[in-house]
């Protein structure tokens, strides 16, 4: 076994201002949600890709994201039992485990991460981007909650471009289907200037997020753009885009990251700061949440930093230049939805991953293929071969699941990673060049 190359220990890790801020924000959000029955706040359930947080806030609704609940349940090791519960109630073992974790949680009393029951949604905002499973997921929830369900379809960017027909379709849906029902459910009249204000704030935070993600171009990278990146995207992908809290959070975070760059420090991990960056990787696909720390440790123990990832783009591809635009409020929401990573065609995904390898000077690509996620996984083997061909950098493939612990095999993944790092070494020394 190789010795850990980490020098700093957990005791040395001081909580950064951004981390404290994020914890407070998340706790506050779940309290707002679980206290909705007392406060009378109305709740909208919706999804991360295609999240219309600014619009939801225009109606004073509290945003509940089932995927984030599934992640929380994965991290807290509860998702396994929930998934089994859903399967016992008739769901197939073959389908998306996010859905089953959510349904299982509902069947077991819908207890949120703060230990209190989550309220029934007042409206299901089926803003559907980049994955067909969302359609079925909210049909399933509608069957249980019997609440109004609003539908917003995002056309797929199959030809690598956004056409006027796509934008018009989405704006029409927003105007004629989404906004009127949100007004009705909430009793709040839509005010486009309020939306503009939120969008303005979104763009400020988005600038800082991009600066943080792109800081990984430094050597060493001050951040891990996958494992760490998941924490960084939380507020903007979730219920905070468009708020002052998000602006503050990303300002703190950016300042911290800039300080790390100045000091030449690597990323913060659960075991302290990484002191030696041996490998720089680009990762495609979601992580595993049931064994998140163990999974991450397999990387930092080897000195591997993820410098760019596609998963941190499922809630927006801001690094490709998109910003919410208060001058074109509804069009901008449409464009935002259209641009999310999983709504991009396979060739676009290949371009993006190859660009990342070049721009972030990465050693190669690693794909974590999620067993139950067709949206990400179907086509990944071709992505792997194509990126390898274009960049000349080695690629590797591992398999796990987002929230189903049955599909996490630590030993297998570790073996694969070890061989992969050897491959990278060989490539560097020129020995693998002919392969």
């Amino acid at each position: 076994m190789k010795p850990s190359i980490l020098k700093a220990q957990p005791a040395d890790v001081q909580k950064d201002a951004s981390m404290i801020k994020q914890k407070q924000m998340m706790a506050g959000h779940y309290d707002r949600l679980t206290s909705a029955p007392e406060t009378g706040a109305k709740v909208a359930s919706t999804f991360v890709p295609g999240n219309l947080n600014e619009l939801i806030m225009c109606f004073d609704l509290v945003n509940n994201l089932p995927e984030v609940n599934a992640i929380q349940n994965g991290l807290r090791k509860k998702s396994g039992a929930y998934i089994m519960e859903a399967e016992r109630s008739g769901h197939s073992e073959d389908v998306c485990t996010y859905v089953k974790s959510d349904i299982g949680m509902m069947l077991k009393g819908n207890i949120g991460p703060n230990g209190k029951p989550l309220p029934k949604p007042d409206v299901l905002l089926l803003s559907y981007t980049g994955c067909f499973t969302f359609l079925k997921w909210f049909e399933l929830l509608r069957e249980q909650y019997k609440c109004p369900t609003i539908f917003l379809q995002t056309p797929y960017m199959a030809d690598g471009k956004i056409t006027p027909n796509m934008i018009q379709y989405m704006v029409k849906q927003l105007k004629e289907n989404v906004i009127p029902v949100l007004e009705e459910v909430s009793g709040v009249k839509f005010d486009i200037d309020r939306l503009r204000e939120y969008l303005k704030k979104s763009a400020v935070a988005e600038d800082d997020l991009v600066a943080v993600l792109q800081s990984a171009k430094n050597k060493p990278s001050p951040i891990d753009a996958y494992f760490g990146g998941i924490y960084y995207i939380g507020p903007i992908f979730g219920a905070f885009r468009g708020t002052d809290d998000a602006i503050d959070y990303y300002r703190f975070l950016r300042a911290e990251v800039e300080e790390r760059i100045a000091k030449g420090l690597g990323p913060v991990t659960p075991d302290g700061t990484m002191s030696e960056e041996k490998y720089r990787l680009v990762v495609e696909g979601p992580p595993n949440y049931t064994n998140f720390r163990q999974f991450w440790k397999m990387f930092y123990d080897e000195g591997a930093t993820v410098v760019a990832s596609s998963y941190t783009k499922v809630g927006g591809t801001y690094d490709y230049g998109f910003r919410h635009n208060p001058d074109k409020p509804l069009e901008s929401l449409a464009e935002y939805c259209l641009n999310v990573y999983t709504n991009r065609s396979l060739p676009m995904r290949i371009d993006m991953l190859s660009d990342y390898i070049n721009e972030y000077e990465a050693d190669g690509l690693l794909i974590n293929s999620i067993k139950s996620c067709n949206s990400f996984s179907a086509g990944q083997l071709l992505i792997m071969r194509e990126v390898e061909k274009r960049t000349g950098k080695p690629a590797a493939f591992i398999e796990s699941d987002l929230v189903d612990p049955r599909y996490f095999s630590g030993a297998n993944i570790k073996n694969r990673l070890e061989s992969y790092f050897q491959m990278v070494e060989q490539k560097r020394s020129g020995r693998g060049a002919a392969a």
Partner: protein
Amino acid sequence: MTNPTTSEIIARCQELYDDLRFTSARDWKDAEPGRKVIAHMPIYVPRELIHAAGMLPLGIMGGGDNLEVIHGDAYYQSYICRIPRSTIELGLSGRLDFVDGMIFPSICDVIRNLSGMWKMLFPEVYVKYFDVPQTYDDDIGGTFYIGEMREFLTDLEALAGRKISDDDIRTSITVYNENRRAIAELYRLRAAKPWQAPASEAYLVMRAGLTLPVEDHTRLVHDYIAAAKAEKRPIKDNSRIILTGMFCEQPPLNLIKSLELSGCYVVDDDFMLVSRWLVGDVPTDGDPVYNLSQAFLHQSMSTAAKYEPDEAEKGQFLVRAVRDTGAEGVIFASTSFCDPALLDRPMLQNVLKAADIPYIAFKYSENSGQMQPIREQAGTFVDSIKLWSAA
């Protein structure tokens, strides 16, 4: 000329079904210079537009159980259904090398992503992901859909090297209306007298429609109906069931035969929805693209790949199909790893439960070999239906 017998017609259909080089479509293309073939996957594309461009629409439903998948598995993890890998196999092995375009309908994430893969693997072929609205208001989904169809028409015009007129489309709508009527008659016959038109035969007749020019297929369906009606076939003590969930990856033919052998009369199914997607005639006067959009929005089939905006309507299509065909039960047969079918299934089952309609469920893949378990399960189901109805 005497009318062909059912066995002659079915032999011809079987030949088309078995021919994974699609010789009849190749021959059609070679018969005249400049002809083009546009292939498409399940579940629905407006074939009228392809036809109006003077091209042959060719339905590709994967490779079935007779295709040895050699390359395809290298493109897909074990936990993804089989149809994309056998379709890639068809492409990589040169079986589709005569095809000028490949259309990927908006059915699920697997087919969607396959559209991008096809672009990478076959850059010389016209590839289109055909997006359809999941909202059904004229002004919203309708406008979008018309826009998508117009874009498709522009592409087809470029491929054909000529303009496609409204009259061309109207003529195509007319021939497809005739085809839809013939198929509706076939389904009515099977529902009324399933012993006269067994499911495995009806299946092959329908499959032929994915390969043959539509005019030829309409004749074939009429011929089959006439022959099936004329033939004396014994009535068995079978139970009438509806098969659902088979809208994309197809079951091996043996599976359908096994269900029949275990005592099922299949009186409705969702096999080749492209041929039955639009219910009834599409009007031929006025703007033909608008008419196609109207039919899509307001007169089309329900399936798992479609969003149901009205909760009260969820699954009712199945209840209605049971009532209309006099079915005694429903068999949910879904492809392994098929998210749309498998996520939809519990909701449909709840609807059937509420309507007191018996059902069973199993999974299959296009290359399933072992029929014994399915035969046993279906046999038990049939027995229990008989017990219930006797009680």
